[in-house]
């Protein structure tokens, strides 16, 4: 690997640790209230949800309206396993890791099951089918015995803290970003760009579509699992159609095809409704207005398909006088 790639990996890594250290200190010293610290955890979970949806919608190019369904599968699976594990006296971290990953695997599996028929459809039809999938998952959970139905799933150990969720988030986002810049990721992006051309250069569209879709579902399921351990209580209404739309709004506004755009949008759009608590009934109106304005002013979203990188930022600051070379703007490994 090139020297410059090494340096930019290092800079990004250090920057992420610095962010962690700052937030961790703030929470530990109780400089910010419990309310804010749980909001920060929710932000991290939403970042996982938004980036994972972005992978199937922005990178693979398939409009998915049922992402909350994968989240629900991950959440309920993780909760069920988590209760069993902590009942058997497992320490917190291994219990979380095992149950959250099981949730992710089951979500990926359901992603494959639904993906094989659904991905034969295009555009609107796929959107409707995934919407139906999300609703089916919600209704099934509503009618199952062990999920507690509409009354909700109680007694999940609240094992989540900032450290766990932060590093889970880093792992998930890094997984997706590194994947996007490998040969598999390029194949997935090529399907978004032009499916016929992708097939004409030897990309198996079925295989890569199902792979991309399942991986997106898997990360979504992981996000759901973390959500279960944060809330300590699950209800089918938490994973309704509006939840899928909330996540999709983050993806669209952040920029379809930009992971860092999704991250920023997830932060803003988890915080904003909280800040607008007083005007809660106008929240959806504000969403709608914002979406319309955004689509008029910047249809490609906040970042378009570009990525933000700490190393890129540093280069820009230090090279201010020099002309920035084109390569650094082209989203190479940085």
């Amino acid at each position, binding site marked *: 690997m090139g020297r410059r790639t090494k340096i930019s990996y290092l800079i990004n890594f250090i920057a992420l640790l610095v962010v962690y250290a700052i937030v961790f200190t703030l929470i530990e010293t109780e400089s910010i209230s419990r309310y804010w610290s749980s909001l920060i955890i929710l932000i991290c979970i939403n970042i996982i949800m938004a980036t994972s949806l972005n992978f199937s919608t922005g990178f693979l190019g398939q409009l998915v309206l049922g992402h909350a369904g994968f989240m629900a599968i991950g959440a309920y699976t993780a909760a069920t396993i988590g209760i069993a594990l902590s009942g058997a006296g497992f320490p917190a971290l291994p219990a979380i890791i095992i149950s959250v990953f099981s949730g992710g695997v089951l979500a990926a599996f359901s992603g494959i099951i639904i993906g094989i028929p659904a991905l034969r459809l295009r555009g609107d039809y796929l959107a409707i089918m995934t919407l139906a999938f999300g609703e089916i998952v919600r209704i099934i959970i509503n009618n199952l015995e062990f999920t507690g139905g509409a009354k909700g799933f109680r007694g999940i150990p609240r094992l989540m803290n900032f450290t766990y969720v932060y590093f889970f988030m880093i792992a998930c986002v890094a997984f997706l970003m590194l994947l996007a810049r490998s*040969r*598999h990721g390029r194949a997935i992006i*090529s399907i978004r760009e*032009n499916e016929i*051309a992708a097939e004409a*250069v030897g990309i198996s569209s079925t295989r890569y579509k199902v792979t991309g879709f399942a991986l997106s579902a898997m990360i979504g399921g992981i996000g759901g699992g973390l959500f279960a351990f944060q809330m300590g209580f699950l209800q089918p209404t938490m994973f309704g159609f509006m939840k899928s739309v909330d996540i999709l709004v983050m993806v669209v506004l952040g920029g379809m095809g930009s992971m860092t755009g999704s991250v920023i949008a997830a932060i803003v759009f988890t915080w904003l409704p909280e800040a607008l608590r007083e005007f809660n009934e106008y929240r959806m109106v504000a969403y709608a207005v914002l979406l319309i304005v955004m689509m008029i002013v910047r249809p490609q979203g906040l970042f378009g398909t570009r990525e933000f990188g700490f190393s890129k930022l540093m280069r820009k600051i230090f090279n201010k006088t020099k002309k920035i070379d084109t390569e650094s703007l082209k989203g190479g490994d940085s």
Partner: protein
Amino acid sequence: MALLEVKNLTMNFGGLIAVNDFRLELKQHELVGLIGPNGAGKTTIFNLFTGNHYPTKGEIRLDGKSIVGKKPYDIVAMGAGRTFQNIRLFNNLTVLDNIKIAYNRSMSYSLLNGVLRLPKYWKEETKANKACLELLAVFDLDGYAYTQASSLPYGQQRKLEIARALATKPKVLLLDEPAAGMNPNETVELMETIKFVRNEFDIAILLIEHDMNLVMGICERIVVIDYGKIIAEGLPNDIKKNPDVIKAYLGE
């Protein structure tokens, strides 16, 4: 043995017979032109060769193996590369990435290997980068490697599409109207490129074209079709004088 061998190829769309009893033999290193008036079925024939359509009847063999019923990406793996009448690039990606996607088949690291950035990833990616840049250099496109594909001038986009098809390492290259929308200067340049590609990469080329200067200038053999049927076949000079061809193009 012929590299591409087609027999009794027929394709019906409902009641319309788009291709009727088409046959072709394309030998190693040959450069053959497929011409015909608009709607004669040329592009349909290409789509049959590349698996975008399945024939109603007939046999297509590439390097001795039947490709009927195979998916487009499998046919690419068997050695047929193509370009499109209306250019289909990965517009929002860089020129280099366009080539690297086509080069995917020559890489083998696993998904986990790629995500964890293990040594195999770096080795293969470095190799792919080098090979793709070399391929771009052949087409004088290496200077544009990090440019977005859609911002290339038209002629360069055509070249990039040909380069991309070559990155899949084909034995047969199918060019669908490569000169469409080009001015005479660009067409002359394209003729040189096609000849050069044939010699440099040692492949057989089948091309559809309306530009008679180009077809007559570089093709060794020409097949003319009208209403899905072959009406003439032979050397460029014979085709020029063939009364059936003149009738098909100009009427009685």
